[in-house]
């Protein structure tokens, strides 16, 4: 049973560039959430996708956008990269409607470095 997979593992970009990160959810899950984890900090919620629509969004600028595909996989896009975007980007999957608080399952993340 495959867990959450993310690609690439590491990425180096320069300021002003654009980047796309990818995530495949755990088998059976239909909801994908993205988090940004800066060095020495806890993860911060970026946004969540279900049925190919953005359902919730955290306090992140419009430079951060996403997409979900019919197979439930998801992409995170960041435009006009800033040095402050350097972080570990985590994808988490879950099942929509899990009112019992079933845990989100996390991938190993993509380490994004901005030069």
């Amino acid at each position, binding site marked *: 049973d495959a867990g*959450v997979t*993310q690609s690439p593992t590491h990425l180096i970009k320069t300021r002003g560039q654009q980047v796309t990160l990818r995530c495949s959810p755990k088998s059976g899950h239909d*909801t994908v*959430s993205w*988090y940004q984890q800066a060095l*020495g*900090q*806890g*993860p*911060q*919620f970026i946004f*969540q996708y*279900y049925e190919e629509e953005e*359902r*919730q969004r*955290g306090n992140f600028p419009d430079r951060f956008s996403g997409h979900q595909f019919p197979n439930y996989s998801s992409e995170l896009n960041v435009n006009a990269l800033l040095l402050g975007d350097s972080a570990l980007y*985590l994808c*988490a999957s*879950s099942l*929509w*409607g*899990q*009112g*019992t*608080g079933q*845990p*989100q*399952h*996390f*991938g*190993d*993340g993509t*380490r994004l470095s901005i030069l």
Partner: protein
Amino acid sequence: AQSVAQPEDQVNVAEGNPLTVKCTYSVSGNPYLFWYVQYPNRGLQFLLKYITGDNLVKGSYGFEAEFNKSQTSFHLKKPSALVSDSALYFCAVRVAYSGAGSYQLTFGKGTKLSVIP
């Protein structure tokens, strides 16, 4: 607004001794609380959760956590620490989403646990 505080950046404990990693929370309504562990260069791994019921919750790898509503705390505990428990631990609270299809997590800053042989 919901928030989580982990007052200790680092906790050091000798192997075999009991360990406690502290967490306090602030949330509107009833909290759903989680503990996750992160090993170097890895994602977050679920340890345990509190939803309702018994205040003492048991989880993976011998960890447990005690929910205290009056103190708004959810401390992580283990009776006997192992060197392999050394990692970064995050406490998180569920933020309810109106429309209630799913939820987002609010995390603390994390506590680095070092178990000394």
